[in-house]
């Protein structure tokens, strides 16, 4: 090696380096590098071929935002009460919008109701996804498509439709723009796991089992129609009604006027439009005497012929308990019921004692909050300190406020042979109901209560409810409303519970009117017998054929038909 080469090598690499080995190592490294590059390319090619390309990633962010598909809600005959239809919604990917001002200008030209400042704010960020307008029409969709604005797209979303409008609003409830249930059965559906399903991303398809309600749309319509008419006729503040299957606990119809249209639920939060039957709390008035009399008969200490001294009012401090239909004589148990004697009921409850009264009402489910599918529910207003005067007033339906559905559940138990069945808004068979039923009174007491209800429709306060052919039994109730701690004589809450047919009850109908006014037709009266009862009669004559109750004529009076018929079975 010449001296100058040796010098260069010594300067560049040092003296003891084998340049051949070094060159071979470098060659190896280069080969490895190229092999890696080509390997990666090959792998990527295989991946491209194997995995079908899709636009899935683009909608990944939007998937969570799309409104849930909800199951259809059907009535007991399969009529649609709520269903989903697809509607396009407009969204933007602000990251991809090139000219925000141009986009805003074009979009507002097509949809003038879009707010410019809000639009600018939504398009301005660097987010991947933003809704611009939910539920647009197909025409608007076509027009926006024609604009060709980059970064703007459509997603078809589920829109909840209630074809019957306000018909069953308080049962169904409504949903918000994301199709999440806010009230009623819709809210219950979400609690049943639909919300979780949606969060997991499985609820975007519409193939879900429909939910069958106990509601009968025809009955519901007839009831609501009559309630609206009654509210207008008696100039009441509100009216409410319920058709209840006593043997299964199903709510066949429930309406509370005024109501709202779930398709446009802006009015739903209006305080006046609450569901009075499950959320409202009322002193039920004389209908509560049914519990008092049932308690007295069930205790075994009284019979239908026991006598009570109703000759003079009862005095409690500054209260005097008087009868509205005062007889001023000794009354038998059945007369206490048919004359709706406050004194008689008070004497019954007082003689059985506070503890027994409380225990009985608790057994009948009147002191605890009623839980149904509907989230709208309130705890009954029970006196914090229950003295003898409370027992006395509660015996005729004052001083204890319950949800009307709760009272209906209790009275249904008095009618159906003594079984307390929790009410439901879902379809339920008699076998299922029997499994849930809890015996609360003796069957014989139930027979006597049916007799009393029928007797009251034959010659008591509810004669106007006796629709020929249906053997109706009924109990009326009129309660004075409390304003700033005082009962006001002119502001009444009237109600009636009618059972049909009384010899073998199938349905219980409740009609309630809030502050009905006396009109010429009622001769200046505003008590239940003059307004709620005729409404109940109208509802019964419309609804009974729909419920499949065959009319029967020329039936013997209650004492022979109900009492005597039940005797041999004892």
């Amino acid at each position, binding site marked *: 090696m010449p001296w100058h080469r040796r010098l260069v090598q010594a300067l560049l690499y040092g003296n003891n380096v084998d340049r051949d080995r070094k060159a071979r190592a470098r060659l190896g490294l280069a080969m490895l590098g190229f092999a890696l590059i080509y390997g990666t390319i090959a792998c990527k090619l295989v991946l491209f*071929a194997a995995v079908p390309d899709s636009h899935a990633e683009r909608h990944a962010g939007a998937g969570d935002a799309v409104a849930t598909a909800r199951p259809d809600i059907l009535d007991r005959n399969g009529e649609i009460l709520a*269903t989903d239809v697809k509607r396009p919604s407009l969204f933007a990917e602000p990251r991809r919008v090139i000219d925000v001002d141009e986009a805003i200008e074009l979009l507002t030209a097509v949809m003038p109701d879009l707010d410019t400042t809000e639009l600018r704010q939504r398009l301005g960020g660097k987010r991947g996804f933003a809704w611009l307008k939910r539920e647009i029409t197909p025409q608007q969709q076509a027009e926006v498509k024609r604009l060709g604005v980059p970064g703007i797209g459509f997603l078809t979303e589920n829109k909840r439709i209630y074809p019957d409008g306000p018909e069953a609003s308080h049962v169904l409830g409504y949903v918000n723009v994301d199709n999440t249930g806010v009230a009623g059965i819709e809210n219950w559906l979400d609690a049943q796991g639909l919300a979780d399903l949606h969060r997991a991303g499985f609820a975007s398809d519409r193939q879900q089992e429909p939910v069958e309600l106990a509601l009968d749309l025809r009955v519901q319509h007839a009831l609501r129609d009559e309630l609206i008419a009654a509210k207008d006729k008696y100039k009441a503040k509100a009216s409410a009604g319920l058709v209840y299957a006593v043997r299964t606990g199903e709510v066949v119809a429930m309406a509370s006027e005024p109501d709202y249209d779930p398709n446009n639920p802006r009015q739903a939060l209006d305080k006046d439009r609450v569901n009075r039957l499950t959320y409202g709390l009322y002193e039920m008035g004389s209908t509560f005497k049914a519990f008092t009399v049932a308690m007295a008969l069930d205790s075994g200490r009284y019979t239908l012929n026991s006598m009570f001294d109703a000759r003079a009012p009862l005095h409690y401090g500054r209260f005097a308990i008087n009868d509205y239909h005062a007889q001023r004589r000794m009354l038998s148990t059945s007369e206490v019921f048919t004359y709706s004697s406050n004194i008689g009921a008070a004497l019954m409850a007082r003689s059985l004692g506070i503890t027994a009264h409380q225990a009985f009402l608790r057994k009948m489910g009147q002191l605890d909050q009623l839980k149904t599918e509907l989230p709208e529910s309130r705890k009954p207003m029970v006196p914090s300190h229950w003295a003898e005067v409370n027992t006395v007033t509660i015996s005729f339906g004052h001083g204890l406020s319950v949800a009307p559905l709760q009272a209906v559940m209790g009275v249904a138990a008095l009618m159906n042979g003594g079984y307390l069945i929790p009410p439901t808004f879902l379809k339920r068979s008699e076998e299922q109901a029997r499994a849930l039923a809890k015996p609360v009174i003796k069957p014989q007491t139930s027979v006597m209560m049916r007799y009393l209800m029928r007797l009251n429709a034959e010659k008591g306060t509810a004669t106007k409810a006796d629709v*020929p052919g249906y053997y109706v039994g009924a109990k009326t109730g009129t309660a004075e409303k409390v304003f700033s701690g005082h009962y006001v004589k002119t502001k009444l809450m009237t109600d009636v519970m009618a059972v049909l047919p009384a010899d073998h009850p199938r349905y219980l109908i409740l009609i309630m009117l809030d502050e009905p006014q006396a009109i010429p037709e009622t001769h200046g009266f505003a008590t239940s017998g003059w307004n709620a009862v005729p409404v109940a009669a109208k509802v019964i*004559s419309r609804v009974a054929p729909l419920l499949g109750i065959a009319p029967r004529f020329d039936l013997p009076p209650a004492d022979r038909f109900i009492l005597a018929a039940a005797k041999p079975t004892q």
Partner: protein
Amino acid sequence: MRFLHLIVVAALVSAAAYVYKVKFDSALQAERVAKLTADLAHERDAIASLRAEWAQLDNPTRIQGLAERHLKLKPIDATQFDDLAHLPDRPAPPPDIDDPIGAMIDQVPTSSIGTNGAAR
């Protein structure tokens, strides 16, 4: 040796062609499946919106309004129902004869035909 090479190359080419064909067919099938699924979803949505519309038209409030405006029908009364047991018995079937009209003519007394004719 060269012959073996030729065979291997031919086999390689045909295998590649076959794989390509299978891949192409499967892509075609997958496309068809996707299209059918989309069609199904579309049809299902159409059915849903038609059912919703039907329910809207079938709504009792609307039907009642129409009935009140156009029909003279009234709500049914309890007295208008009757039991199937009260239905009269089905009348006895007519005797099985070949010539029903001839039999009817035979039943008419000949004298009455004569008197009618005479009166005319």
